[in-house]
């Protein structure tokens, strides 16, 4: 029975619950028409964001995908700003212009929610290049899905990063499906971690449902990269319990497979581990539920009350205003 530090354990559980409840509320708000457009929920993959994200400092750069609610929450952007963005309000973290797929937070070097599959990888490589050229001990975390490994940009980016020994971590959240296409139906080599061998990039696969396994593997990799070892690839083997986006009929997978993976729900499993380690009480759970519930209700009220961006600002920020040039 490995012992778990109670405070840290409760922190991890709290943040996984926080993402889960936030995403459940998003599903409800989407069905009520408050959230529109595309909505890709992170339910089932919480352990990856909660395990990996804290290993990066606020000086490091984060590039993520359209399934980035969890990453933004853990990175620290206030839930209020995320909910307001989902409502399309001017108080949103992108002033209502990005929506669910495009969360941004310059103060936390969170370079988005980028929604073109594979589109974020070259940008992450560039961010790492800038750090190397300016001799800064910073790293760049690049999250992407198993779908992105089919894009040319994945191979170009790994090659360039390895060639120039750039401080970037390629963090692949392999949830076994590229929208409706199972991994084995779009990849000749389904062991994604081994793809890094082609570019002489150290890599490993990790159980993406085990938050502590994610945490330790990522921490080790970040230290290596920060010391200048060049890029590192981690494949988190995880699974999404919900449709690719709201809503699809999930014709591409069986109910049995979904319920099988739900046996390894990252939150339920970790809850058991904490209980077995004697560091979790019923009271703790209630506290987490009510704290998370209050934060979500507050975020929803903040989003409801938020103003729409005035139409006069429609074309604001297409270009940088003159006075801002140094």
């Amino acid at each position, binding site marked *: 029975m490995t012992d778990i530090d109670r405070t840290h354990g409760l922190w991890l559980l709290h943040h996984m619950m926080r993402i889960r409840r936030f995403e459940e509320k998003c599903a409800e708000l989407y069905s009520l028409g408050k959230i*529109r457009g595309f909505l890709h929920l992170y339910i089932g993959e919480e352990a990856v964001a909660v395990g990996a994200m804290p290993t990066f400092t606020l000086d490091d750069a984060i590039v993520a995908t359209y399934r980035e609610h969890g990453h933004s929450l853990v990175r620290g952007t206030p839930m209020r700003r995320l909910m307001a963005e989902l409502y399309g309000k001017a108080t949103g973290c992108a002033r209502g212009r990005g929506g669910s797929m495009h969360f941004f937070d310059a103060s936390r070097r969170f370079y988005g929610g980028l929604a073109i599959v594979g589109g974020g990888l070259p940008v992450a490589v560039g961010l790492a290049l800038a750090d190397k050229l300016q001799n800064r001990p910073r790293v760049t975390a690049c999250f992407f899905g198993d779908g992105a490994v089919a894009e040319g940009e994945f191979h170009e980016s790994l090659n360039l990063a390895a060639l120039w020994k750039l401080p970037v971590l390629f963090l692949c959240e392999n949830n076994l499906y590229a929208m409706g296409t199972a991994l084995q139906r779009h990849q000749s080599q389904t062991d994604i971690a081994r793809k890094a061998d082609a570019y002489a990039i150290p890599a490993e696969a990790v159980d993406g449902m085990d938050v502590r396994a994610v945490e330790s593997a990522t921490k080790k990799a970040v230290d290596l990269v920060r010391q200048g070892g060049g890029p590192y690839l981690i494949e988190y083997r995880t699974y999404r319990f919900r449709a690719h986006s709201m809503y699809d*009929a999930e014709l591409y997978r069986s109910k049995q497979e979904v319920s099988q993976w739900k046996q390894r729900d990252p939150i339920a499993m970790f809850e058991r581990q904490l209980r077995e380690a004697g560091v979790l009480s019923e009271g703790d759970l209630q506290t987490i539920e009510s704290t998370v*519930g209050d934060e979500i209700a507050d975020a929803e009220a903040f989003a409801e009350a938020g103003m729409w961006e005035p139409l006069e600002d429609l074309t604001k920020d297409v270009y940088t205003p003159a006075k801002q040039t140094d």
Partner: protein
Amino acid sequence: MAEFLMPILGSDMTEGKLVEWKKKAGDRVKKGEIIAEVDTEKATIEIESFQTGIIEQLIAKPGDTVPVGAVMAVIREEGKPSGLLPEVQPQVHLEPDRAAKPTRPAAPLTPPAPRMSESARLRISPSARQLAAELGVDPSTVQGTGADGAITRQDIEAAAGPVLPSSAEAAGTAIDRQARIRQTIAAAMARSKREIPHYYLSTTIDLSRAMTWLTEQNLKRPVTDRLLSGVLLIKAVALALREVPELNGFWKGHAAAQSPDIHVGVAVSLRQTGLVAPAIHHTDKHPLGDLMKRFQEVVKRARAGTLRSSEFSDPTITVTSLGEQGVETVFGVIYPPQVALVGFGKIVERPWVVDGQMVARPVITATLSADHRVTDGHRGGLFLSVVDRLLQEPGAL
């Protein structure tokens, strides 16, 4: 009590068909549990309940097509709501996408000063220039109502009068000509109704003195010089315009332009092909006999299709009489860019009170359609009363 609504299952969904309920009334349902299956155009989706509680009542029946946001079931909530459970809005808050509805600041109403390009070129659209050539209208005499005073096709059409059976039509076949004439009338009428805020006034005028005087006159006059009642009405209108001049002129661009001369346009029906209203120039200045001659001449040329375009281009007001078609009251449509139209109905015998006695008198209903941008009812009413007064002294017309 919480209502379970048809959820929005996709960005373009407006309704869903209930395939089947997975729960029945009285069942307990947990938050996140599947409660029903719904068909959208794209697929059959299992939908979850967002509340924990006992199902009070299933409202929608399998097979029903339910609009998004409509109530499908009622759930009696129980169990501790986590934190402030936001009160469920009864219907889906389909916030109109406000960002998409542009709220343009009201355009300033100040009329744009007509901008003359440096070589004082005529601001006329190529197609209007071509139409002017076709219809024999000199564009330089036409006031443009387009952007910055530009002359548009409509300006040319209006300047060319409501109908143009002039020789320029000769090329087309009769049917083709008719269609084109109808088209031109249609354009003018549509524009009038669209742009001119009409108001309408009518009054009944005792014509006994006028008709008696007319019969006496025609006895004395050879048949070639006989007068018609219509000519009295036209002259009365012309003279009345001297006292209420604002009704005589045009609406140009954004302002009224009163005309110094009085050219009454007289509506003449061309039987199959519609209506034309050529102008009798300086109507107020001709004695009745002379006016009758010009009136006859204009009607004859209109019918033969040989009207001069100038007779078309500048009636300052139009008079139309439908008495002979058995109509008592005419509420006409103003011919743009004019600002008024006078209508006369049938002359009929009517009981009329004179000094408390009931007598029979020939009367006629005179109406005025006028452009409320230029004049208001007060001035219109005054005009009709002047026409009435003038018709009581036919000899002075």
